[in-house]
């Protein structure tokens, strides 16, 4: 739920309570005023009638509510009879409405020529049910009007006020730490938003700085490792060249060399990854992917043969792509290498080149690989100690760099598909 709607919801609830309480108070206040006014009217009428009776005693015989809205009856009083005016509500049949309607009645006693007369005056009353109904209708109207104005206000004014906030959220959504795209402040007069903007800017800058520092650290570490590695490898090679060692010693040194070579590969892979991340491969050319695949499969033919496998290339379309040639070779080589390395011996590796896509398929373990981890750095699918765990991560980084889609699926065979735009 959006913030605006959220506040509107609470406003709506609060207004229901407020308006209901207000309606009750208003109703009673109004009713009180109406009674007051009616009672004043009745009393005034009473005075007029009493005065008129003095002039015209015939009026004393009006003892039915007929055309008049009063009756006068002779009455006896004793010490218990109250002489005060009394107002009551009661019902009376109304001709026009054809039903009993509430009326206000004033009863009073006055003295005329030594006799006491009881006078009753009536007047039509506010119909309470009608009154409540009307009040309810108008209040609902008011309520809706208020909600409507709040919504309109929110959408026009609040939206404008909250604009820096939504802009910031949009920018944060699109923020990628690896891209040099700092979040710029949206100018605003609102103190809270200014504070938020500043904090976000500081935070993103800090994260980016530490990201860059970390990347540089890996890069520098890899660089610094090159020379000692070179020295160590060359020293051992020199030792081997001298032909002074026994067979066992030669084998031991060979094993050390193998491991140093692995370390070198790992180091090179890390450097390659940081180079890709740093966009250090700028030269691009239009590459014919078909010939590239052919030359790579040719390079790997001996390796495949050694594993008793065959590489079939099935091209049904010409695919070309604008990218750096070295990176393209590395990307495709990694897939082919993996397919041979993890493929089942005696089976085939199939490479299908179709319109806009290249798929590399190999038989192997009879279940799908975990595609979440597949392209992550240092995630190895097998316990093979010789793999660096960076091959697919490098291919992914290259594919991302050139906006190629990379998909993995399993349908009896493991299939890696590159989709060219």
């Amino acid at each position, binding site marked *: 739920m959006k913030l605006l709607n959220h506040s509107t919801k609470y406003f709506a609830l609060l207004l229901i309570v407020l308006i209901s309480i207000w309606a009750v108070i208003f109703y009673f206040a109004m009713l009180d005023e109406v009674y007051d006014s009616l009672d004043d009217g009745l009393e005034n009428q009473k005075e007029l009638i009493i005065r008129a009776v003095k002039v015209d005693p015939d009026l004393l015989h009006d003892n039915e509510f007929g055309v008049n809205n009063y009756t006068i009856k002779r009455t006896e009083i004793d010490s218990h009879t109250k002489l005060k005016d009394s107002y009551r509500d009661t019902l009376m049949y109304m001709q026009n409405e054809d039903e009993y309607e509430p009326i206000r009645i004033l009863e009073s006693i006055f003295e005329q020529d030594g006799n006491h007369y009881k006078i009753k005056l009536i007047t039509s009353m506010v119909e309470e049910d009608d009154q409540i109904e009307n009040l309810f209708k108008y209040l609902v109207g008011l309520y809706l009007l208020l909600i409507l104005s709040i919504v309109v206000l929110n959408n026009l004014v609040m939206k404008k006020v909250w604009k820096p906030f939504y802009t910031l959220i949009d920018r944060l959504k699109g923020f990628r730490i690896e891209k040099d795209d700092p979040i710029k402040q949206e100018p605003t007069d609102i103190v809270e938003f200014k504070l938020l903007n500043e904090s976000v800017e500081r935070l993103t800058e800090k994260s980016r700085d530490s990201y860059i520092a970390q990347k540089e650290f890996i890069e520098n570490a890899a*660089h610094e490792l*090159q*020379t000692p*590695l*070179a*020295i160590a*490898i*060359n*020293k051992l*090679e*020199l030792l*081997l*060249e001298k*032909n002074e060692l026994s*067979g066992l010693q*030669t*084998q031991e*040194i*060979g094993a050390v*060399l*193998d491991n140093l*070579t692995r370390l*070198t*590969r790992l180091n*090179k892979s890390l*450097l390659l990854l940081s*180079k890709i991340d740093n966009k*250090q*491969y700028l*030269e691009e050319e239009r590459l014919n992917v078909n010939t590239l695949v052919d030359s*790579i499969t040719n*390079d*790997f033919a*001996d*390796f495949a*043969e*050694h*594993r008793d496998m065959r590489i079939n290339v099935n091209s049904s379309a010409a695919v070309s792509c604008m990218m750096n040639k*070295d990176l393209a*070779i*590395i990307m495709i*080589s990694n897939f082919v*290498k993996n397919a*041979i*390395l993890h493929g089942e011996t005696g089976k085939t590796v199939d490479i299908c080149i179709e319109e806009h896509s290249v798929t590399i398929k190999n038989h192997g373990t009879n279940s799908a690989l975990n595609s979440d981890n597949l392209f992550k750095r240092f995630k190895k699918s097998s316990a*093979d100690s*010789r*793999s*660096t765990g960076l*091959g697919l991560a490098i291919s992914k980084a290259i594919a991302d760099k050139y906006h190629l889609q990379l998909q993995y699926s399993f349908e009896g065979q493991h299939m890696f598909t590159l989709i060219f735009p």
Partner: protein
Amino acid sequence: MKILIIEDEPEMLENMRQTLEREYYTVETASDYKKASTKIGVYDYDCVLLDITLPDGNGLELLKQLKQLGKDDGVIIVSAKDSLDDRIKGLNLGADDYLPKPFHMAELHARVKAIVRRRSFDGNKLIEIGNVSINPENRSVHINDKEVTLNRKEYDVLLYMISNKTRLVTKTALAEHVWGDHIDQADSFDFIYSQIKNLRKKLTDATATIEIEAVYGVGYKLQVV
């Protein structure tokens, strides 16, 4: 044959010097920019191994200096910074080759020999060893004056082994040279065995006086019988 090694890392320098001296080259060394600059100004070398990152200057400047002096020493840039930028800059400035660190000694020999061969203007461009003669220009191989047909990989293996004759060449070094860098993660380099086997057979069939022997599963060595 005179070679100058310009390298600031003493151990690295010593390794290169040792291995090259075994080929009976005259090896001179310079460990900083100043010394190197003096040496290339005074002497001529057949091949200069040039480290780009020197403590007191950029190796590429030395390359410029060489070219300004009108010298045609062969230059191989040796760099720990395997950056495309440096490679292109170096080659544009007239370097003959670029060898990123770390490298195999066998690779160094192959590169140096290629430079030396390219620069030998005395007409004798043939590589001769035992009764085997190789013409690198058209990649033809003659054994006992009879032409032997080798496929590309067999030829590359043979030339590499000859460049490193009587030295133990590890399988890794051989695979990376012949099959390219991208083969690197292939689980083991045993797959090169089939090419070696075919090559050996061709050499034996032509009664060559060289043979490639396997060394304890570590690598191979070319011997003149």
